[in-house]
């Protein structure tokens, strides 16, 4: 536990509390208050990111603390986009995701500011991480829908029903996941001379991409004949993403080129 008695910490805890309250309001069907709190949480988390940016003086995506902080901001606009444009609901789930990602930023990861090592001083650093963050949020939304479906819950709410919603989220996230992988590869080539270095982090990200490739082909072949199997693919994909994002960074098991990102 690393409680942050700083302005940065205060902003994160406020946003976190808003997201939790928004979810509670939603549970008690106080929809408007829930939406308002959700938006407020987003606004405060946004201020927290800007504050961090100003504090460290580089794009705040260098370590897990900064990445989780940014994830806590991106979820609201994606939620809105999904409802308005993609016909996918699950806002209550989004509030939970937002709280889950801000929790480790506020209470687990160290916020010690770091200077950018030479390898991270690249024009591809920001786009690569940003695109991955967007992809991860879509995939997280997909897996919440998939898990709900496996648990026998429907997310209808006048939007796409759950299995279809899951598929649409994967369709939204997969191109971003692909772009993230490709940008990382191009960057690796610029920094280390290898567009593919067989580093553990690269291999985990390839594995997560391939799980979704598998899902897309499976669903293409089987349609909704086995909806539960479809959902299992997506949940497995998210599990592999989590390993890519966390385990490789946290454990000493996979020492590699990306270890600086701890």
């Amino acid at each position, binding site marked *: 536990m690393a409680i942050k008695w700083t302005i940065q910490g205060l902003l994160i805890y406020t946003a976190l509390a808003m997201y939790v309250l928004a979810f509670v309001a939603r549970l008690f069907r106080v929809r408007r208050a829930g939406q308002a709190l959700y938006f407020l949480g987003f606004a405060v988390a946004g201020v927290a990111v800007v504050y961090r940016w100003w504090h460290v003086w580089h794009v705040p995506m260098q370590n897990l603390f900064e990445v989780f902080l940014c994830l806590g901001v991106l979820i609201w606009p994606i939620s809105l986009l999904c409802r308005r444009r993609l016909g996918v609901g699950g806002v209550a789930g989004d509030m939970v995701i937002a709280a889950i990602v801000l929790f480790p930023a506020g209470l687990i990861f160290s916020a010690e500011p770091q200077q950018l*090592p030479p*390898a991270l001083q690249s024009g591809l650093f920001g786009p690569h991480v940003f695109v991955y963050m967007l992809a991860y949020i879509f995939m997280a939304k997909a897996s919440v829908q998939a898990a709900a479906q496996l648990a026998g819950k429907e997310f209808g709410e006048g939007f796409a029903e759950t299995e279809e919603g899951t598929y649409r989220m994967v369709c939204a996230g997969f191109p971003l996941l692909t772009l993230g992988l490709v940008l990382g590869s191009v960057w690796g080539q610029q920094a280390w001379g290898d567009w593919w270095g067989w580093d553990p982090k690269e*291999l985990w990200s390839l594995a997560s991409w391939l799980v979704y490739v598998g899902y897309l*082909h499976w669903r293409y072949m089987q349609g909704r004949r086995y909806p539960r199997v479809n959902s299992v693919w997506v949940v497995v994909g998210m599990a592999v993403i989590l390993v890519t994002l966390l385990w490789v960074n946290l454990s000493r098991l996979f020492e590699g*080129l990306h270890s600086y990102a701890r």
Partner: protein
Amino acid sequence: MATKRPSKTKVRRFLLWVGLAAVVLLAVLSVYGAFVGAERAEGIFNSLPLAVYWVGFSVLLGVSFWVFPRFTDRPGAASIHLGCVFVLLGGMVGSQWGHDLQRVVLGTEKIRRGRMVIYEGASENRVYPASGEAKELGFSLRLKDFRMEHYEPGVLQIESRDGAGWRVAAEAGTEYELGGEYGKVRVLRKFENFKLVLEGDERVAVDAPGPDSNPAVEVELIGPDGSSSVKYVFERFRGHAGAGERFALSYFRMVRDYVSEIEVVADPCLQHAGAGGEVVASKDIEVNHPLHWGGYRFYQSSYDDKEGKFTVLQVVSDTGLAVVWFGYALLCLGVFVQMWGKLAKPQKTNFTVTEAKWRLSGQSRDC
């Protein structure tokens, strides 16, 4: 007796299953590779069985264009699969196997990967591969200067014997209260190249800028009772508390960049240090900014960490790279067209088992 040919649907179904199995196998191998570490993983993915796998996978992708006519009216999906073919081809052409094959078939003599050590002021054209003999390039690289740039100010780290620790900006004039029984610390001076010189009978610390470098800070430790002592803390030597000393002091500066100022000298006869030749290009090679010349890329890789007199460049052949980039472009374009294009269409919720059968039969009913 005429044998019955399998129907197109069966072939398609079979190929789709094989494709899915190939994708899952690769995912499993990737996870395995992540556990064994980059070096062993590279060996595994470049082994003979895997070489067979890569070729088989590329063939499978290629064959799918012929077996699934649906690709013709799905430019996005076609672009994705074609992109994958190019990436795999580029990877194979650029691999060690690819280089060896090109040597035999085309007679090209290119090293796939190697290292170059260049001293300041000298030219070099020899590249040392990980194993085997050095190869001479058709041009030389001259190192005008190698330098390391640091983030300023550095950090003075203070550790007390009882385990308390502080980090202070190592900037002349900084004064920091360590609190209570620890007293305070003051940074007096910074040195780029610390030297002791004799002035009369006394040895005096001076900053002697020049090619050498011995970064240090002069620090005053002030006890709670007002007693004071002056210490020199060196970047090159990690601090430890000697007998009777209350603190271990260390001085760090984080590296911002490594820069090799390089000139490309176009004289194939030139071999060794110091010789002249026409300079045809120049570049500051930095991390993330390699030099691309003569079919190779030159990367900042290492340096002389004792005196900073030479740089080590990693030299990588660019064979196959353009093919990979082209494949990436197709792949990225394809996924956005195919997947986001689908999202832009009005929502469809009645995808059924019948639809799956339609797809397998290869007929073009839109989905």
